[in-house]
Structures are given as C-alpha cells and as structure tokens.
C-alpha cells in the first residue's frame, strides 16, 4: 500500500523533474539563443527568414556538422580528434583519383569513405595500444593525412565524378539541399546510436568512469577504437559532401575545420572531461555557428567581428555549461561575500 503511494508520488514528481531537466539542458538554451538571434537578425534584414537563406545557412554548416556528430562521440569517450580536416581532404582526394583511374563513381566514393575509416582505425589503435594521448596522435595524423593528400594530388585539384554532384549541389522536395538531408539523417542516427544502442552506452561509460566500465566488463579499448573509426568515417562522408559541393577535391580542403568541429560539439554541451554530450546539441552548435556567420553577412558587419564573436560564443557556452553543472558556486554572491568580507 505504502509502496504504491510512494512510487506514485515519485512518478508524479518525475514528470515535473522531466520538465525541469528539459529546461536545464544545454540544447534548450542553445535553441533559445538561436531563435533570439534569428529574430533579431530578421528584424533588421527580412531576408534572413526566407526559406532559401535558411537552407543556405544549413548548407554552410553541413560539412562541419557531420564531423561534429563524430567528434561528440570522441569527446564523450574522453578523447579528442584534431585530424578531421586533413582526413576529410584525404578521403575526397582518394575518391577523386580512384574515379579518374576509371572506377565506378560509387565505388570511388566508398573507397574514399573507407580511407577515412582506416585513418580513424589507425589513430584509435595507436591511442589504445600505444597509450599515447589522442591529442598527440591526431596532431600527427593531421599532418600525415595532409601530406598524403598533397602526394596524391601533386597540388592539382581532382575533378569529382559528375554522377555524384547531386550530393553536394542537388535539391529535392521543393528546394531542400540533399546535403542537408544527409546531415539531418546522420544527426538522428547519431543520437539514436548514442542513447539507444549498447555501443553508445559503452562510449558514455568509458568516458565517464573508466574504472567502473572496466570492472563492469565493458571492452574499453575496443570501444575507444570504434569511436575513432566512427569519426573517421564521418570525416570521409564530409569529404565527399564538401568536394561534390565545389565539384573538385583540393589538397587544401578542410584546413582548420577541426577547430570549428570541436567548437560545435562543445557549444552543444559536450565536455572535454568526458562522459557528457549529445548529438542534437552538436547539431544546434553547428547551426549557431552558421547563423552567426550568416547574420554578419546579412548585416554587412566586418568579418573580423564575426571571428571575434564566434570565439566569445565558444567561451560563453563552456561557462554556461559549467554553471549548469554547479561548478561555478565559488563565484556566487554568497561565496564571494564569505571570501572577501569576513577578512579580519
């Protein structure tokens, strides 16, 4: 009797708790920021809210966003991948040169993506077996993959197969870019993979509490390697999307993208100390970056100001996240009063 009433009360409370926890999520705050920012921009320039412009905004973040899905997994596993920009270029260039050697365009594409996965596998294996920090290993891979890219192209752009150009340039269903659809599908799959599969829960366990994961019988090393394979594969897909957007695979493609990718994931609530992050958050983080860039263009503001503001957004998002976690209590008025006023 008592048990049922207690449980019933617990359930009732949990509905309120769910509402509160939704409000406290990073994604909710992020969505709010995007909406407010969008509203402000559209007050000044009504072009912002036009369908074409919105698709355009999304299209500019597709490449960064797709990799950010993988980076979120990597960050949750308490690792980092700095090599994604180079791996993106390597995948695209390999696909282009395989096609030029006479292969079927689809085969060329799959080979390119497989090269990305292979890079991830190499990184993961060295990180796990060699016990080197992933920061260092992927810094190495950043250089190795870029070097390979230059070797393959000899500095010349590779023409991408025209059969694949619909991936980067095509539009369906009344103007929705194909690349945006690919992005959204990958985000949904990523979120499901993270929260609904054994693999996703293993990634969370490994990054949150390595020791507990180990004693729980989770294959910690294999899980880490697989997260690197995942981000490598996604970097490969992003490479195909990027090169089909412009029609050629260049050796310089994706330079510096690793920073935008990490920014998107972190703005979305992923923690560099492992365990926490969501794919939806990374999606919104990438969108915020896109909206900011677009806003600066529509408002005709200096691109330098744009760069500056993106930097501030990254730091503000990380601070907001710390506050949400209750890690900023030492800055509360009460704590500060105690620290400075009780001096005798």
């Amino acid at each position: 009797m008592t048990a049922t009433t207690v449980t019933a009360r617990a359930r009732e409370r949990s509905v309120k708790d769910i509402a509160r926890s939704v409000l406290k999520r990073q994604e909710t705050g992020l969505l709010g920021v995007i909406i407010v920012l969008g509203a402000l921009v559209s007050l000044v320039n009504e072009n912002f809210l036009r369908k074409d412009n919105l698709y355009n905004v999304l299209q500019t973040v597709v490449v960064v966003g797709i990799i950010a899905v993988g980076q979120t997994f990597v960050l949750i596993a308490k690792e980092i991948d700095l090599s994604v920009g180079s791996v993106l270029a390597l995948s695209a260039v390999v696909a282009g040169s395989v096609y030029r050697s006479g292969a079927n365009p689809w085969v060329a594409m799959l080979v390119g993506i497989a090269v990305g996965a292979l890079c991830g596998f190499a990184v993961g294996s060295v990180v796990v077996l060699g016990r080197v920090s992933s920061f260092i290993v992927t810094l190495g891979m950043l250089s190795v993959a870029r070097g390979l890219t230059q070797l393959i192209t000899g500095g010349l752009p590779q023409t991408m197969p025209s059969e694949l150009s619909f991936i980067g340039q095509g539009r369906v269903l009344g103007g929705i870019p194909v690349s945006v659809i690919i992005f959204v599908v990958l985000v949904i799959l990523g979120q499901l993979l993270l929260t609904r599969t054994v693999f996703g829960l293993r990634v969370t366990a490994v990054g949150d509490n390595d020791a507990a994961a180990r004693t729980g019988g989770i294959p910690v090393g294999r899980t880490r390697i697989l997260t690197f394979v995942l981000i490598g594969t996604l970097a490969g897909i992003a490479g195909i999307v990027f090169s089909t957007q412009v029609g050629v695979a260049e050796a310089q493609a994706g330079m510096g993208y690793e920073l935008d990718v990490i920014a998107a994931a972190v703005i979305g609530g992923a923690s560099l100390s492992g365990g926490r992050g969501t794919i939806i958050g990374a999606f919104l983080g990438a969108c915020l970056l896109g909206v900011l860039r677009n806003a600066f263009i529509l408002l005709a503001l200096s691109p330098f100001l744009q760069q500056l503001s993106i930097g501030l957004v990254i730091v503000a998002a990380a601070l907001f996240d710390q506050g949400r976690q209750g890690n900023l209590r030492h800055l509360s008025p009460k704590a500060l009063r105690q620290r400075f006023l009780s001096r005798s």
Partner: protein
Amino acid sequence: MDDATPAALAVAGLAKSFGPVKALRDVTLAFPAGQVTGLLGENGAGKSTLIRLCSGQMRPDTGRLLLDGKPVSFDTPLEAVAAGVVVVHQEPLLIGELTIADNLFLYDLGERPAYAPARRGENVARARQLLDRLGMTDYLPDPATLCRDLSAASRQMVDIVRALSRQPKVLFLDEPNSSLTHEESERLFAVVRRLRADGVAVVLVSHRLAEVFSIVDNVIVLRDGTFVAAGPPDEIDEKKAVALMAGERKRAVVAEVAADRRGPGDGAEVALQLTGLRGEGFTDVDFTVRRGEIVGMAGLVGAGRTEIAEAVVGLRGVTGGDIRVGGRRVRIPGPGRAQKLGIAYVAEERRTEVFHAQSVGYNLTVRILSTLGRFGWVSSRRTAAAARDLTKRFGVKTASTESPITSLSGGNQQKVLLARALAAKPKVLILDEPTRGVDVGTKAEIYATLRELAHTEGLAVWFISSELEEVVELADRVVVVRRGRVTLDAPNNAGPQPIVAAAMGSTEG
C-alpha cells in the same frame, strides 16, 4: 571453523607482496555459507588486499581459493562475478551519466554485442521488477533517474542492488555503510539478513563495530597482513576484537620509548589553537599544539583528519570557528598566507608533492626562492648553497643536489619534502602521513629529527598518521578524529587501545 556449515569461500596460504611490503602473509580462513562474517582490522591490516585477491582484482603470489570446496582462480573481476563472488565497494563504481537502471544492468553492456539496441526502456521496467522482488523499491528514486543526481547513500544502494542482481554466493561488503545514516544502515542490514537466510556467505568490512556486532555470526581479525583470530561474537566480543586489532606487542614498544618522551609541559606557549573549527568533513574541532610539542592525530582513513589540516593551511574553506597562531586570531585563505604565518604543511601524497622532472635542489628550495635573491632574480649560487645545506642538515642521501629527484628512494624523497617545509623556518609543522611507504631506518631518522626540532628549537609538530605504532611511538599527545569530530585528546601514555576504541567509536575498550 564449524564443520557443519560448508564454507562457500575458503582461502589457503594466501600471500601478496607489493615490492618489499608484505600486504598479506600466509592467510588461511573460510567464509561459511549462510552466515555473516565480520572481517576486522585496522587500516593496512590486509582486509582490502584479501578482498581484491578473492574477487579477481589481483592475483595472489601464493595460495589457493576454494569456492564450494573446489579450487578456483579468477583472472578478472568479471570471472569472479560469473562464479558468484561479488564485491560492493566503498566507493561505488557507477557511471554518473547513465540512469540507475542502466547502471544496475551495466554487465549487459559488456556481454551484449555493440550494435545491439540498448533496451533502456526495458531496463527501467526490469529495474522496477528487480527492486520489487528485493523489496527495495522505497530505497531508491525511480530507476530512470541519472546516477549523478543521487546522494551518496543512494549511489551505494545502487551498487548493492547491482551486486544482489547477480545472485551472489559470496558477497563482500567493503565498508558499505560508511556513508549511510543509521536508518539506511538498518535497511542494508535487513537485506543482509535475508541473504543470510538464502544461504549466501556475506563478508562485512566495517569500522562501525557496534553495528557489525549486531549482525555477525562470525568474526575474523587480521593484523599486519596476518590472520589473528576467528570465532563467534560471544567468544570474541567487541572489547576483545579491539584488543586483537591493536595488538599486544605494541605495548612493549610504548614502554621503551615512553622513557625518552619529554613533553613540553603545560606551561609551554600555545603555537596553534583551533576553536570550534567547522568545514566540509569536520565539525567543532578544538585542540591546541604547544611549542615543543608533538601531537599525533589518529583516526580512520576518511575520518576528516586531512580535511582539518587542509582547512588550517587554507586549501579548504572554513565555515566557522577560529584559528589562532601564537595567540592571534588569523584567517588563512591559502598556503601562501600559512607560510607567512609560520605554518608549514607536508601533504599526504608524495607523488603529487614532488616536482618529478626537477632536481633534488629545485625540490628543496622551490618554496623559499624569493628569499634567495632580489627583484625577482634568483641567485643560483645562493640557491645551490641553500640546497647543499638542507641536504646535509636533514641527511638526504643523494649524489648531488643536481641529481633528479626521481633517482632518490621514497624515504629520501620524503626527507626532501620535510626539509623543503622546514627550509622556511616554520613555527608549526603539519605532516600528513609523514612516513607512508618509508623504510624502517629512514623512519627512525625522521622521528629523531622531529623530536630534536621540537625539543631543542621549540617547533610545534602536528602529524596525522594511520599507523597506530607511529602515533604511539612519536606523539607527546594524541588527538583522535572520528567522523569529523575529535573523540579523544589525551597525553600519549595509555598505549594503543584507547586510540583504537576512540577511532572506531567503540563504547567499550
């Protein structure tokens, strides 16, 4: 052991060493099925090592495990769990970002393929059923709650429920109630009684003796890695258990050194006085350290001793009470201020205190660099001289002050830390576990140095130690902390027994 009840788990001739330290030597004992066995001993007696060896977290150097009479060996904790030997750890091993339900079925994540759906909704339903079956629904919030939002007691309970879900034959509870209130402990013990009725061998490690003795069928006492005694509680009662844990031979040591002990006398000036000090982990702490006096602080690991010391040197917040240094009320916001007030602190973990990549000389002088030069420049000549002087004064055995600190033995590194703290010529020296992992000879040298500084220069020494022998041997006065409060403050002349009794909260002894 009673032959009528079969032993669920028995160990024979079990031994384990870590380097030169023998953590467990030739231990033979049994945990009978359908009984609750209390495993008792001080810190360092070998309880944790024994549990690790029994549960596959470590392999023994020699000796055998027998489960239901058959020899077994476990390479991993998972193998032990599969065989029915389950441990509930003092620090619950949970994934904070997953729900209670996911944590309860964490082993599934290792056993099922990576591509399989996680069945989290199903997990919640299974968790509710499991809690219902165990009659523990009211003990925990809804299983869909994230573990990071749970209280310490609830986290412990999740770990316990997870252990029970594996249908153990042998269940080790390693200080399961250290973070639980009395009421929560009672709930836990109700579960333990039911397990006993189901024929499980329950092994309970706890420092709350009164509670242990309210439930156990058997008591096993370990001391210094050896088996001391076993028997039912009417043979080994609480008082006798305390005596067995403390050990009789320590009394002989006391008699020897007591003659050498010259306290400072009541008239000595008070160097450091704490009045009603409160903070996270301790409350209403009152005690004083006089000039020339060596105060030994004893208590269990986690009792709040380190927290008090850290609060005094400003590493931790103080929420109430006074700190007086030389009679003057002071506020210490950080270790820099503490050093200016003449308080030096040597923290517990040598690994985190030493600058590993640097030389012996750097490690010795790093805190006094501002006195070895001017305008922010450091005189290398004066630094080298100071380092050489310190190595000589404190007998640090090193080839040169330029040698890397890592080339020194643990004992010599400890001397370097001591010398570094004393280089600033403090009036009060606070030491946390000053001789952990230090060999016997160096220990004696450190003791001699501390005594001499106290008795000739009037240095006030406050050391924290979990080694009872050390407290009994070195201290002029003993302060015992239990669960954040001072439970004993007395001259060190009564041997180890009152210290153990005060530390364990035993009413007898």
